[in-house]
């Protein structure tokens, strides 16, 4: 089944839309009942999107939802998703793929903050940039993303993979400040540059292939390693010593 949601033009396109109802499984039932929040008003999904359904599916895995048009302010798409596919042709709003545990989300444009927040499984691919808190957790929780695979072809903002507790995050471009801060498990790879990675790290592995600015003083140098892909020589650090940390940081240049 293919569900095409075309965003209708809005009088005020800046009021955020919360669309946690847009998950593949939901479309196994009639779309008429799906509601979204436009600011503080609850409206039918069909008010905000033109809905076209092609084909049928017997389970969520057989459903692909395509979002078209200006969806840059549509939040919580794919929240708690367990199976199926979501494809966003433009930009996507905050909290895309929140709590996701299975299935796939592909974003052709860029993603706003908190992409893949608290993911447990599944795959997210963002072709553009991701904003702050990509692959991170929620305020106060000890664990952020616990599993799954999150890949951003462009740049990511600050606090990428904060509280990473499992799974894999790959950023092809640059990251902002403090990627991997508080991470405890899982793998974070940054192909570009960033500043002050992995503060307070207690576990897991982070690899940075670009240049690190503001390298923190509380990481202990522990030898070198050769990265197979591209034959790049990396220096290995252990830490964060300030925090009883046993994480591993591989850096090409700082």
């Amino acid at each position, binding site marked *: 089944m293919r569900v095409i949601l075309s965003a209708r033009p809005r009088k*005020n396109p800046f009021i955020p839309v*919360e669309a946690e109802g847009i998950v593949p499984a939901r479309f196994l039932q009639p779309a008429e009942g799906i509601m979204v929040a436009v600011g*503080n008003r609850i409206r039918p999904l069909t008010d905000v999107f033109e809905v076209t359904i092609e084909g049928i599916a017997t389970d969520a895995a057989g459903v692909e939802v395509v979002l078209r048009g200006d969806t840059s302010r549509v939040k919580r798409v794919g929240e708690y998703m367990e199976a199926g596919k979501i494809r966003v042709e433009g930009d996507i709003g905050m909290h895309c793929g929140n709590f996701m545990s299975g299935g796939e989300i592909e974003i052709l444009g860029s993603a706003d903050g908190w992409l893949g927040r608290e993911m447990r499984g599944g795959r997210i691919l963002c072709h553009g940039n991701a904003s702050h808190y990509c692959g991170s957790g929620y*305020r106060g929780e000890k664990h952020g993303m616990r599993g799954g695979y999150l890949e951003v072809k462009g740049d990511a903002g600050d606090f990428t993979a904060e509280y990473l507790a499992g799974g894999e995050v790959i950023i092809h471009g640059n990251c902002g400040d403090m990627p991997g801060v508080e991470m405890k498990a899982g793998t974070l790879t940054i192909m570009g540059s960033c500043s*002050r990675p992995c503060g307070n790290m207690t576990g897991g592995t982070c690899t940075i292939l670009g240049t690190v600015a503001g390298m923190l003083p*509380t990481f202990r140098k522990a030898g070198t390693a050769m990265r197979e892909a591209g034959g790049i020589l990396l220096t290995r650090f252990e830490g964060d010593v*300030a925090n009883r940390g046993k994480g591993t940081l591989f850096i090409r240049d700082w």
Partner: protein
Amino acid sequence: MIVRDVICPFCACLCDDLDVHVEEGKVTAVDNACDLGSHKFLTDHRMKGPVRRTASGWQEITLEEAICETAELLMAAERPLLYGWSGTCGEAQSAGVHLAELVGGVIDATTSVCHGPSILAIQEVGHPGCTLGQVKNRANVVVYWGCNPMHAHPRHLSRYTTYADGFFVRNAFKERKVIVADVRGTDSTNVADEFIRLQPGGDYAVLGALRAIVRGKGDVVPEEVAGVSREQLFRIAEICKKARYGAFFFGMGLTQTAGKYKNVRNAIELVDELSRHTKWTLTPMRGHFNVYGFNEVCTWMTGYPYAVDFSRGMAFYNPGETTAVDILARKECDMCLVVASDPAAHFPAEAVEHFSSIPVVQLDPFPNLTTAFSRIQIPVAVSGIDAEGTAYRMDGVPLRLRKVVDRGYPEDAMILSAITRRIADGGGP
């Protein structure tokens, strides 16, 4: 007539020993207050009454009209923002939260551009704190990090720290060691026994290095961290470990430089680490006299201390998303009610610009920069001068502000309740 033990409604020191001289219904002099507090009591260029902006200029309107129109604007809005709160009493803040809940709006306070990061850090690692009297009576080491109390909290040192004698510290000036960390020399660094001069943005690294040293892993620390020598770092760590009681105070130097809440978190974790050796506490130098009060009120009512979004009928909290500057800069809000704050004076230009596209209503005694963007302004009584109410000091101690004069202005709480009633009785939004 002299009204004694008046509580100063300026900063979060909430000095409660002011003597206010009142003659013929006006304040003529203030004893014991610092310049900031005196100024607040003595200057007076208040607006006369509610006004509405029209194409031909400001129009005087009645309070009733102002309340009705504000209610209508709030009801029509799809994403109203209710911002400010730090300059008024708890009773008004409570009414504000009720109103935000009713209209499905976002309520946020000045916290989000000030000590919000402190709260975010506390939400990660907790707050090892105390009331200020503990510091006064016991502390023999005081740290001021990234703040300039001589200017921003002028009586802090004489009431609570450097110059304040206490039960166990009979000669504070001699017995207390003061450490000040800043990126440049200030009047506060001038009175320090130890001045840690660090590079801008270097707080996180320096605090992390201190933590490592206190943990006994100082060997990892390089020769210099953010402009601070290894030697000074070790010396500071030693002073802190050997303190009988250490008190850590901090301000915008941590909360508003790169990393923000991570800087504060690192400071808290340093204090936690030191607490394994001796006694240490940490206190954020809250600015407005009742900003902490808003955090308290908002928390017991909604569960969250600021930046609460009620658009889905229950409280949602996510600083960065539900905070005023972000909502304005992203042009998300379609109406703004400002109470007891002046965001046009403080917010980034991108956020302030949006005010010109939406209706803004302001409850404030004085014309200010936000007035330039307001459609309606209602002058109100000033909490602590012509209105009573509850305020929370920077350490959480709640006091009741006094009313020393009567100026005939309506109070914030009354207006907000009237707006709420009008909306609820009118069948709700």
